[in-house]
């Protein structure tokens, strides 16, 4: 069944988009991530303009992370103070990201920057994940106990001024690094159409020493709040959010996520991280190949002016 997308201005097969939503939702539920970094490239692949894909995926991620956040809220696994502090940085970051997005589009360099950001970010995160999980798997093979990563040690920036007590997470650190992390996530998210959960979780664990009990729930709250902000900003400045596309994606996404979460619980944590790392690397590699290989056509066209 074909449906005409009003903003993307192309007809797509509803079942294809729904299936993409389900598949990405399954993966996001399994690994506890938003899945934007998979969805945006898939949409570009089926012919949606990169700018519309990025803007519409922010809406999709808002829905899937909101349903996740509610589940964690019921388990009281969310640090509201931490989430709101991150958000303060995140909103400024989102606004900056949307502004840069608009400017890059005018300079004909948006697609390049989206591509470059994907390559850089995904290769770094992919390599880190694969390395860390491989070490954990090898340790487990040798029968050594898993390394406990919750040292009370301080990093220098914890001591900066504006100290805040995050009660639920039992940490007492300066608000400055937390705001900076929020800013980075919001900024990157707006440009790349990703929630940034796969970046935020490790940053909170390793840099702010947030315990694993609250980190995912808190990260989901920040993700849905920044994605809601990014949706509104993209809609208000670039008019690129396709509500019909986003709706089909989110319906598939939230259903897929339920099955994914179920599947994820049956796999050991380190294997799950290894799989995620390989997936992230594969997507990064795909973008790298695209940037390095000589394109089939050196020319491209883009409509300017408001009507499209």
């Amino acid at each position, binding site marked *: 069944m*074909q*449906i*005409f997308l*009003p*903003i993307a*201005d*192309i*007809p797509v097969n509803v079942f294809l988009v729904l299936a993409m939503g389900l598949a990405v939702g399954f993966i996001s539920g399994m690994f506890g991530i938003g899945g934007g970094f998979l969805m945006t490239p898939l949409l570009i692949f089926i012919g949606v303009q990169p700018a519309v894909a990025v803007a519409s995926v922010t*809406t999709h991620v*808002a*829905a899937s*992370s*909101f*349903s*996740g*956040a*509610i*589940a964690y809220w*019921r388990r009281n696994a969310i640090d509201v103070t931490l989430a709101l502090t991150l958000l303060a940085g995140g909103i400024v970051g989102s606004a900056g990201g949307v502004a840069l997005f608009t400017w890059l589009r005018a300079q*004909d*360099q948006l*697609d*390049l920057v989206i591509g470059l950001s994907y390559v850089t970010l995904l290769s770094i995160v992919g390599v880190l994940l694969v390395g860390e999980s491989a070490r954990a798997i090898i340790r487990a093979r040798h029968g050594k106990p898993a390394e406990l990563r919750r040292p009370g040690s301080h990093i220098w920036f914890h001591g900066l001024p504006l100290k805040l007590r995050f009660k639920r997470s039992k940490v007492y650190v300066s608000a400055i690094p937390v705001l900076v992390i929020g800013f980075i996530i919001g900024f990157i998210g707006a440009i790349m159409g990703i929630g940034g959960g796969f970046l935020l979780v490790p940053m909170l664990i390793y840099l702010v020493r947030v315990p694993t009990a609250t980190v995912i729930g808190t990260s989901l709250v920040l993700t*849905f709040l920044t*994605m*809601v902000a990014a*949706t*509104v*900003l*993209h*809609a*208000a*400045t670039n*008019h690129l*959010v396709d*509500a019909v596309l986003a*709706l089909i994606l*989110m*319906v598939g996404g*939230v*259903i897929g*996520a*339920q099955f994914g979460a179920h599947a994820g619980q049956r796999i050991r944590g380190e294997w799950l991280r290894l799989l995620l790392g390989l997936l992230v690397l594969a997507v990064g590699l795909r973008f790298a190949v695209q*940037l*390095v*290989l*000589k*394109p089939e*056509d*050196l*020319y*491209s*066209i*883009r*409509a*300017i*002016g*408001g*009507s*499209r």
Partner: protein
Amino acid sequence: MSYARVAALALAALLANGGSATAERLIASLTNHHVMITSNYTGVELVLFGSVERDAASAGRHAPYDIVATITGPREPLRTRRKQRVLGIWVNTAARTFVDPPSYLAVLTSHPLDAITSAENERRLQLGIANTPLPELINNDIGEVGNDPFRAALVRLMRERGLYSEQPNAVTFLTPTLFRAAISLPAQVPIGSYTVDVKLFADGNLIAHTDSAFEIVKVGFEQFVVNAAREHGLLYGLATALMALFTGWIASVAFRRD
């Protein structure tokens, strides 16, 4: 060459003096003047049909008629960009702005253009894609650039998308004076007003012309969404965000396990 030119000029003068003086009259129409884009829109086909009306003066003409129909979509500025390898990766390094190229251009003819009229006439009457002016913006000046690779790329890319086309033999004569042509509009054609310019040739000369028009509009829900997104971006964004939150909430209720 000069004979054709003189004849054409004479004819143009006659046309300017009023259609009644010409020997043939051309009548053309479309099956549909309003194409509605609804949510199940996947492109559409229109039929252009028409007839050549002869009077006593032209009744004896034996030469077969030829039709050149040019369908032009709404005009919109366009940028053509060229990639170049910079530090190992491919980057857009050069770009040209085309001021108002048609977003859709189809030239339907009853024979290949070159068989219908002279190259001179094609140029003068701007027949075919190659003779359609596509002015560029050059340092705040607007002009045509001859032999421009950016222009060639624009035409090639638009052809690949099915937006520009030259279709020889697309116009068929059902009787010596009655013709029809199918205009197929792919799904990605932009909305707006389209003009259909129909020219009648005989012996290589333009002897009559007429025009028609149609409009592609989004209706109903599609129209509503596009208007909302363009005119009320902020409200549209808030509504979309609310929709996302609602979907997420529904999902968390529907799949609640505790």
